[in-house]
């Protein structure tokens, strides 16, 4: 098999994007009747659902904290979400790791001190995986928390970036993700301009790292613009509905 050409001579990627371009984003809030907040989020072919419950009574006795709410996260992938069928949907090491990472991200953002002795659950379900599920889940969870009306310091937006053949790329898809280059998932608080999640598992020179990091930050900002614009529309609609009721 010949090597895949990740960057065409014209500078376009396998799916026709430019290096700094994120995939098409669409989302919807409030899908489920039983959850307090929920969101469906799609970024290209990566599609995830998030549901939020709480603040509610702590389910595991002894886990309760007297001065703040505890956050509970579960990430799972549907058995049909990947090209090859997955044997089990949850409880593998990767899912557990992602659950912990996402929990830590949101522990720093949610105003947990407002709800002592309670629990907030965030459940994420991947329906279709095409690279960047970790970041998509963070964005979906962030939207579901907003839908549930849970106070947060800021929006959390997340985007990954990588480098293939010396070119920094934002928002890698599955093919680019499997190329073996560095992958840098990043989550930021866009208004406060702070990093709340950063992972990188490859060798890079400082200059290259800075380039990739810049790509990820730019990706996050693009995503934030899209999420924020639509969220304002949705909120406007809600307000208008209320006006007609009064």
């Amino acid at each position, binding site marked *: 098999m010949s090597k895949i050409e990740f960057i065409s001579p014209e500078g376009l990627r396998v799916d026709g994007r430019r290096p700094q371009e994120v995939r098409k984003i669409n*989302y919807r809030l409030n899908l489920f*009747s*039983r959850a307090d907040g929920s969101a469906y989020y799609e970024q290209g072919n990566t599609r995830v659902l998030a549901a939020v*419950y709480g603040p509610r009574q702590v389910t595991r006795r002894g886990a309760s904290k007297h001065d703040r709410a505890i956050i509970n996260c579960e990430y799972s992938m*549907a058995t049909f979400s990947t*090209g090859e069928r997955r044997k089990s949907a949850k*409880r593998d090491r990767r899912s557990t790791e992602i659950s912990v990472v996402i929990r830590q991200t949101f522990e720093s953002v949610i105003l947990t001190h407002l709800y002592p002795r309670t629990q907030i*659950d965030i459940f994420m*379900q991947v329906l*279709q995986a095409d690279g960047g599920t970790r970041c998509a889940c963070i964005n979906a969870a962030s939207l579901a928390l907003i839908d549930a009306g849970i106070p947060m310091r800021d929006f959390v937006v997340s985007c990954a970036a990588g480098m293939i053949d010396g070119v920094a790329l934002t928002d890698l898809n599955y093919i680019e993700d499997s190329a073996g280059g560095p992958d840098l998932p990043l989550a930021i608080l866009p208004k406060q301009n702070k990093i709340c999640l950063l992972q990188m598992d490859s060798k890079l020179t400082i200059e290259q790292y800075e380039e990739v990091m810049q790509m990820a930050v730019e990706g996050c900002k693009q995503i934030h613009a899209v999420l924020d614009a639509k969220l304002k529309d949705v909120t406007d609609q809600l307000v208008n509905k209320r006006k007609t009721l009064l």
Partner: protein
Amino acid sequence: MIKISPSEKQFLIDGIKQNMRTDGRSRLDYRAFTVETGLVAQTNGSARVKLANNTDVLVGVKVEIGDPDPDFPDQGRLEVRVECSPSASPEFEGRGAEEMNAILSAMLRNMLQNARTVDWASLCISPGKQCWIVYVDCLVLDSAGNLFDALSIATKSALFNTKVPKIEVMETSSGQTEIEVSDDPSDFTRLSTASIPISVTLAKVGSRYIVDPTIEEELCMESRVTIAINSKGNICSIQKGGVSSGINPSEFNKMLQHARKIGLVLLKELDALLDKEENNDTSTKIGFAR
């Protein structure tokens, strides 16, 4: 876990006695349902079914080549799995849904495994050596009662939507078989889904019975009967559940008759919906973002 108070329960039971349920239905009314097929790109077939906007299930079907069941060497294999997502209820977190998953999977498997529902022999590639394995993976996303029926409708729709790639079996000189899967995505066969049954669930509440119970009604029911009906109006499986004292056989026969009548209407409705979905242009599909 959803909980209702004794007075709320009494209200529901009294309403059912007067043939007026809390959502305005009479005892034998079924909720309106919607079907969308072909939503998940990485599957061979998929369907999402919603009952009255609140019970929400997603089924993905994947077909893979594998070893046949040693007991049925000349047939394809079926694997059914139901997963209740915690988005339907927080108690489904972690291992919390295991019991529910097992009950629902067993019911669906029994309904589909029956030899005459799908032509399993057509899924055999080389007897005793290789066959198609049909993985039916169901995801319960939101629950407002009657998961059994929603899953059965969604499974039938997903199998209807399933495209099995065409293959060519070649015999090599050493007696080995080699399989070539067609690269052309438009080169596929369909499963014969016309005789797959769907289930109709009746719940006994007090001295009356109702069809398609909501989640609140499920909390007041004494027993549940799930009956699978095919397009010929034949009974394909029966399952009685619930915690009650039992059902009188003559009353049970009446329930069967009602289930049959309702099942046939639902099947007709479903066939029309599926035909419409099939002729729909895929570019107009919105899926979850709607």
